[in-house]
Each structure stands twice: as C-alpha cells, then as structure tokens.
C-alpha cells in the first residue's frame, strides 16, 4: 500500500503557511524601505537644485503649483514653479502665499505642522477624503488647492469677497456655514485665523504630492455635463 500523501499532511500545510507568510512579510518590509525613501518629505534645497520629490518640502508654498499631463508618464503630475515642456517642474515661478513668497523652511514647516494637526483634530477625514481616503460626505481635498472654484474666476473666491485664493479658503474655513454652497453644509469647527492659515498651507502642500495621476482630469472640464 502506498504511503500517505504529503498533500493531506497537516504539517506540510502548516510549514507552507509559515513559509508563504514569511516570504510575503519580508517582501513587504523590503518594499517599505524603498517606499520610505521615496516618500520622505523633501526640503528647500531640492527646489534650488531642481530635484523633484514625490512629497516636496513645506516651502513648496512659495511656488506656483499646477497639475499637468506628463507625456512620459501618461498621466497628470504636479508641476512646481513652471513646466519645462516635458512635464517636469522648473522650480522657478513663485506665487505669493498670504502676501509672501519667501517663507523660510522653519516658517513653512511650522505652518504645515499646524495645518496637519488641524486636519486631524478638526476631523476633516470623517466628511472629506484626503488622497482619496476618508468619508464621502464632502469633496475630495487631494487637489483642492488647484480647484478652479477657488481661483480668480471661481465662484468660491467671489463668494467670500477675498482677493486671493488662500485668503478665500481661510475665510471659508473659519466661517463655513456663512457661505453655504449646497444644502449640505460644512459645520463651524471653531477654526481660528492661524489654524485656517495652517490648513490652507497643508492643502497647498498636499496638492504638490505626486499621486500617480489621481484624480484624473482634475479641473480640466468645467460644466461639460449636466449632472442630472
């Protein structure tokens, strides 16, 4: 009579499970080391040296940010300080943020820190999505900074009566229910002027993160289709 098959042996499957799990875990840890290197936050020197980081340093708030098609990568990428024509950032064109385009590394870092803290303590993620993650009760904030509604021609900027995008966003954040856009409103979360400034810096910084082309066609199509 033939010996018992290994395929019906519990020890065999136990060992297989251990090896497969171990292999998957080691691969994940190895990839994590690589990813950590790629998503660690950049610094001000990167902009001066023309280095593109997936997550740029906080002083990105001194630059003009756009979201443009990269033919090389086949999707949109954040462009910081002007496009070289090939879908790469030039880090040259500046843009004033609350009246200044010379925020130092420390100042910009402090602003971003305050903004990130605010994004958590005000619970943004339980209505909005950030980088597409969170709740679905309010618009995605990944590229909110680049939303045409907040631009010079935009309805939101006009509504707040402010002259710049950042001031309009800060004003809205401080008094959201004063500026209802829809029946579904943002509640007053007691956001102070400083916190609002930090939150807008956080949003501007987030729009500069390389999200592999998410969301697609952001802000490119306005009123093309009637939603109903």
């Amino acid at each position: 009579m033939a010996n018992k098959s290994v395929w019906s042996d519990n020890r065999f499957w136990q060992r297989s499970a251990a090896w497969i799990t171990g292999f998957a875990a080691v691969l994940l840890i190895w990839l994590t080391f690589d990813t950590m290197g790629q998503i660690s936050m950049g610094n001000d020197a990167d902009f001066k040296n023309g280095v593109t980081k997936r997550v740029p340093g906080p002083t990105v708030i001194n630059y003009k940010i756009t979201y443009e098609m990269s033919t090389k990568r086949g999707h949109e990428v954040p462009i910081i300080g002007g496009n070289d024509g090939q879908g790469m950032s030039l880090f040259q064109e500046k843009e004033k943020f609350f009246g200044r385009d010379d925020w130092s590394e420390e100042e910009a870092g402090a602003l971003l820190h305050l903004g990130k803290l605010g994004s958590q303590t005000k619970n943004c993620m339980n209505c909005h999505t950030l980088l597409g993650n969170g709740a679905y009760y309010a618009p995605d904030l990944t590229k909110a900074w680049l939303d045409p509604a907040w631009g010079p021609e935009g309805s939101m900027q006009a509504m707040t009566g402010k002259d710049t995008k950042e001031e309009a966003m800060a004003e809205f954040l401080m008094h959201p229910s004063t500026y209802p856009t829809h029946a579904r409103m943002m509640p007053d979360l007691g956001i102070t002027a400083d916190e609002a400034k930090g939150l807008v810096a956080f949003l501007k910084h987030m729009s500069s993160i390389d999200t592999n082309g998410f969301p697609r066609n952001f802000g490119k199509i306005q009123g093309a289709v009637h939603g109903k």
Partner: protein
Amino acid sequence: MASNHLTGIGSESRQLATWYFTFAAIIFGAQLLFGLVSAIQYVMPGFLFEILDFSVARMLHINALIVWMVFAMFGSVYWLLPDETGIETVGIKIGKLLYWVFVAAIVVVILVYLFIQVGPADEMSIWFIHEGREYIEAPRWADFGIVVVALGFVANLFLTGIKGNRSGIVTVLMADMIAFAGLYLCGMFFTDNISMDQYWWWWVIHLWVEATWEVFVGSLAAYGLIQMIGASRKVVEMWLWIEVAMLFGSGILGIGHHYFWIGTPEYWWEIGALFSALEPLPLVAMFIHVMYDWGKQQGKQAASGSEESVVNNKPAFVWFWMNAFGNFLGAGIWGFFHTLPQVNLYTHGTQFTSAHGHLAFFGAYATILIGMMYLAIQGTNGIKVLKNTKASIWAVSLLVGGMMGMTIALTIAGYVQVLVSRAQMGATWAAYFDGQSGMWFAQAMDWRLLMGGVMFIGFLLLIKDLVTTGKNPVHLR
C-alpha cells in the same frame, strides 16, 4: 465540562467571554444608531447640523464597528480556549480586570467624542480628544490603554496555549493575535507628511481587515464546524492551514491596492493589482470548505439511516454559512470590483468603497461574530440542540436583506459618482456636488436609509432572540 458555581457556564474564561459578547452587542446597537444618523444626514442635511455633525456621527459609527468587533473577537477566543486547550484560561483574573479597564476606556472615549467633538489644532487634542484618522480615531491615551489590554489578552492566550493542549486552531490564533496586536503600534505616531501617515495607517487597517482578521475568521469557522456539525478536526485544521497560506499569501502584499494614489511609487500598481486580485481565492475556498464539510457530515448521517440534521445550533450555523458566503461576496466580489488600478483611478474615494466596506465588514465579520454569540448562548444555557425561532429567522433575514439593499443602493450611488463626478467632470468641488445632486444618487441615499432602518429592526429581533433563548422551551436540553 463540569458545571460549577458559574451557573452552568463551566469556566471563568467562558464567563468572561459572555461579558465581552454582551458589551459587543450593545456597541453593535450604537453602531447602527449612529449609522442611521449619518444616513439621515445624506437625505436631510440639516438634521442635527452643528449638534451632532456627520463627521462626529460617522466617527462614532465606524469606531463602534471596530470596538464591537474587537470585543466579540476577544470574547470568541475566551469562549473557545477551554474547549481547545482542555484547561481553564491562564491568568483569567487579570483578563477580567482588563475587561473592565477596556470598557471604562471605551465609555470615556465615546463621551468625549459625543460632547467635546473637536479641539484646537494641537497635540493636546490628539492626546485627549481624538486623532482624526479614520477607524483609529481613539485619542493617544486610549491607544496606550488598548495596547495594555491587548497585551494582557495575548498573554492569556499564549500562556493557556503553552500550558494546555495546543491545537492547530490555537496555534493559528496565537500567531494571528500577536500580529493583530502588534500592528496597532503602526498607527500610534504623528507626522506632518500625509503620505507617510497614510502609508502606516494602512498597515493597521489593511493588515487587520484583509489579513489578520480574515485568518481569525478562518480559525472561528474551523472551531464552529467542529462544534456545530462535528466535522473532523484533522480535515478542518488542514483546511485552516491552507487558508492561512492563501490569506496571508495574497493579503499581505494586497496592501498595495491602497498605495496606488497616496504619493507612493508606481510599482505598487502592479503589486497591488496582482496580489489583491488573488485575495478572493481563499474566500471562495472557505465557502467551499463549509459546504463540503456540511455535506460530508450530513451524508454520513444519511448513510447511518438517519434523516436528522447534523447541525446542533441552527441559528449559529445560519450565521456561519452567511459568513462563508458574505465574506466571499462582500470582501471578495465587491472588493475585486474596484481593486485594479485602471478602475480604482475613478472609483477611489467614492460610494463604491462605501458599498464594499459595508458588505465586507458585515459579511466577513459581523456574521461570524453573531454566530459565536449563538454558540455562547447555547453553551451558557446547556442546550443540546438550539433551534431556529421566528425571531432568529426574521433577524437574519432583515439584517442580511437590509445590508444587501444598502450595498446595492451604495453601489448605484458610487456608479453615478464615478461617471459624473469623476469620469465626466474631473473630481472638483463642483463635479462632486453635481454627482451628489443626481437623481440616481439621491434615490440611492433614500434606499440606503430605508435599508438601514430594516437592519435596525433585524438587530432588535436578534437581541430579543438572544436574550430569550435561555428560557425558550423549544430548544432541546
């Protein structure tokens, strides 16, 4: 097991399990209530505006979800340990103390969520109000409390497993629970870098619900099959090891499907797509396994000339069966719908995710944990054959039917969002609201609310059935 002073339960571990199940059931109710509040707000945006805003209601909804499931999971382990190891759980007194610490911490956290809601943008808010990170919002002080409680639980499990008879099921649980507890640490830090933040946040969320929790479910299913239909331990445990290999083999690297768009490199597209596409396979296998063992046991019974059912706990078995199918449908099918990057580019962050989340959490976890509650009710009351009652049948029908209705409604809503807000209009603020005001979207939200109500009635019947089982003469003793 000999009956003693613990009113027939037979062990302190089992008594502690019933405490865990009881609190879990209460929090399950809270989860449904806050879910209903959130669902009403989609339909009537002014409802409780600036009193109990959507963000707060939804935070309570999803935190209650995690809490009741963790409680029921701990309860399940304390319930099955004496059966599996043949001894009383080691360190059970500390286990009982930690239960009360856990309950007290949860109550404080809920009260703070409800009445303080938001704080200023500083570290104090993170430490004492909430961390504002979906699913693991618990403030930092509570994080440390949870770690202490989890360590105590893992210690109970390990010491008992080492001292007693360490079955295959217990071995899997030991490995799984240490990973489950350890992963929580990945969510306990603050960083200004949102990409880094979400990278590690997913280590907790994904490696819980798509890896360690799934293996946990596999262990419970194995235990349940032995208990309910007298399945062969050897067969069941072999299947369990195969499931562990398949679940961890696909699930661990399947985490890549959360790394498509958060700032992480492009290679996650391929890794995430490949491994997460494999994730449904073990879920199919688990369903086949339950059906196979059931057929095999019933067939044996038939061969011996008896037409009697081999199932000694009907409602529990219904819920375990619902788990096997619901896990496959909710986590497997609904997950696979949007797991490929080409699709996910448009579905990421829409009601599609919400549809999947609802059906997967319910199908994969709620079902089997309710099944475990029925096993505990049976054991606690010394019932030989626990039968279905009108209430148990209505409870399962309304809960499952309501959840399916809700999932279909959310899927349709997600479809509108994908087409209008994403593909056609490019995901701006205006695009978002154009999608939300679409007629299909609005009607889907009405249906979702209605179906949520259906679920709540099902929940009330479930509780009624659970609390009246002990005195119901219909069951064989």
